[in-house]
């Protein structure tokens, strides 16, 4: 509780710079799932702010991700269609998704997908795997419980340079 109060990180809409950092984080996973190459942008189609944020994320991913036949492809995924999206290597959670955190977390456990979010509360509550913030200082926080439950491993150096919960 005290840790949360002292933390300088606040939740908010996702910025392109957040996404650039998030894409970089994917590289530090030491056991990427085989055969899964898509990156989902998870949003709530019934909440305008969430849909708008998802579009920002999608655009940023299109710029940040490498191009080529084997490069990961970003796709929009409505939270209601999540159960059908089994081939996602990673999921970026858009803003205004707090009510769906449990469902997102369960999806990660079930499929081994890396769950990224700029809403750091999702990580502190151990529902998302990695939280990213680019301003005022780049912050990367990691939920070791979510990572462990999803079978995701990070390099030792990466773990030492981020804050784990």
């Amino acid at each position, binding site marked *: 509780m005290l840790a949360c109060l002292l933390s300088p990180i606040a939740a908010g809409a996702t910025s392109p710079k957040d996404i650039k950092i998030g894409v970089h984080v994917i590289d530090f996973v030491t056991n990427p799932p085989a055969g899964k190459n898509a990156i989902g942008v998870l949003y709530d189609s019934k909440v305008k702010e969430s849909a708008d944020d998802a579009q920002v994320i999608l655009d940023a991913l299109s710029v940040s991700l490498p191009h080529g036949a084997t490069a990961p492809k970003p796709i929009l995924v409505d939270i209601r269609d999540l159960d059908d999206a089994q081939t996602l290597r990673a999921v970026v959670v858009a803003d205004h998704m707090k009510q769906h955190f449990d469902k997102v977390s369960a999806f990660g456990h079930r499929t081994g997908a890396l769950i990224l979010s700029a809403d750091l509360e999702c990580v502190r509550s151990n529902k998302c795997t990695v939280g990213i913030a680019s301003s005022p200082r780049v912050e990367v926080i990691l939920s070791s419980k979510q990572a462990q439950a999803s079978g995701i491993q990070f390099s030792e150096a990466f773990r030492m340079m981020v*804050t784990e919960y």
Partner: protein
Amino acid sequence: MRIARSLLAILSVAAASGASAQILDYGDFEGLFGEPVTTSATGKPERLSDTPATMDIITAEQIKRSGARDLASLLRMLPGVIDYRGFNGVESFSMGALLLNGREIYTASFNQILLEDLPIALEEIRQIEVVRGPVSALYGFNAAEGVINIITFDPSKDPINLAMGRVGNNGRRDATVIGTVPLANGVGLRLSAGGDHAHDVGDVHLATPQVVGKNPERQAFSAQLSAVLPNGDHAGAEVSHSDVTVNTMVPEVTEFIDLRIQTDAAKVDYSADTAIGLASAMVSYTAMRVPTGSTPASGLFQLNDHTVDAKATDLVKLGISDSVRFELEVRDEDVHSNSSIAPISADFLGGSAMWEHQFLPDLRLVNVVRYVHAETTQGDTSTPATYVHFDNHGVSDNSALIYRLGDEDTLRVSFARGLALPSQLTFEQFGVTANPGKKTSLANNPNIATSNVTEYRLTWDHQIEALAALGRVSLFDKQSGDVIGLLPLQLVASLTPVCVKPPNPRAALSCAVMARESGLEGVIQGVQVQLDHASWKGIEWGLNYSYEQDHPHATASSAVAVPALLDTQSYHKVAGNIGYAAGDWTFDARLLYSSRVRSLTLATSPVPQVGMVADKNIVSLSPHISWTPLSDLTLDIAADNLWDYKEDLIQRVPTTYFMTVKWSY
């Protein structure tokens, strides 16, 4: 034999680690966090803003914009580097240990660092990491005053292909060629070769028949191989050769010395992210040969110095709040010199442990402790008259608390105790030992004991977003005890008869410098204020100010000879840089002000007299203009020290102008 067994043991530790993984990659992590990363502060990978130690990093971009021709020009701009002023960029640097990718650049025979012995070009450097205060708990006996760790670009990821030529006044002629060869996917080899030449104008010429190398010369070659293996492990190898001619000073006896030093070095390292953490092993070998050296005290001499160093480390994060690191190091140094009664060898065995605990996301405590056992031997028991053997051991430690106070402020509180050993110079490398049979030495503390440095430091960092700058205030109190270099002046005169009435100025200076820091211990209190990497309307600038007040304590004999030794001294230094980029042009300048420093010296006329002499305040301006007409071609015009100044009786820092052409291919 014992060293060989230890090496095998260390290598077996590394080989025992199964592996999969990803290791620390400076470029990847810098790209992620948007700031330099380092392992120099604790041995653990950290962002610069997260290090518990007060440290600075000079980046490749800063090196490029500085226009500096050598490492000395870069280091003297840092806050807290007060005693270092420069002498053609070739003088020794006595602020702690100097490492090149973890291998120590150190001439054990003279107990000093020769910056010119660095076998690489500035263009190969990714960053220069400077940790202030004692860190011998991490790096061993030579780091009692700090550490400078030079990290080069990784040839498997950052290819550098560059040809560079430079001409300037005073006969300056430098040339460097660097090429990187990709050998396979994830495997790269970088080769570099270079040579520097200048006429010696910094040395105030003194009559001597023994000068062996009047002009500073340097030739160097290096090769660095880096391989990221299919399983993610990293293997590296480096070999280098340098051939350097310098006129310099030996700190322990503060004796003027002319040297030609040829150094061959090799290093192999292996690291892996294993089930037991990030494990790594490194073995290095350095052979230094002095085919011709000369000092006033010992005349001409030759010397061979061999050092083997091996270390194994394991770094692991336990849970979410604790990281621990263990290191085992063995080191063997051997010196053979025709000026010594018998060969000298020194064996070191050290072990260290680091523990970091994160109490809160913004509050961490780091502790490091190291134990070292050292045996130094001269001769063998078959000749008791010359046999000398000493055992030294000790514990050094660092503790630091780092607390992030919101988004913009960071507070660091640290305590450090560093230990330094007397060097092999203690054993009369230059014929200055008082009485080997009694196991005493003129050139060092008589008991060949360790000296110690204890520092308390409080540092506050504040991010100034409006200026994109880091503001820092650092307060420290540093106490030194059992300082190496006890050399009462009376002993100089009584044991070196020439010093009673020096026959010429050079001999007089030799006597003076031999006594120069004799028997001094003391307390230094200071403050360092800096504003770094500020940017305003396209103008880049930085500024730092250092103030130190020294309260020396002299040994009784030294104090009687020179009562002024006990006087309190104050130093001020201001260093700044400013630059502007416009299209293909960049304009930069470095400004340095350093207040006068008093030092012990010997007047030679009309009769030899001992006293404290203050040099002048120094103001130095070094402008630099760079033009890049083509993407792969850069022309630089630069000047160092626009105002020539004389530093003391034997050193002068001249104004130098030079033009550099760089072609990237």
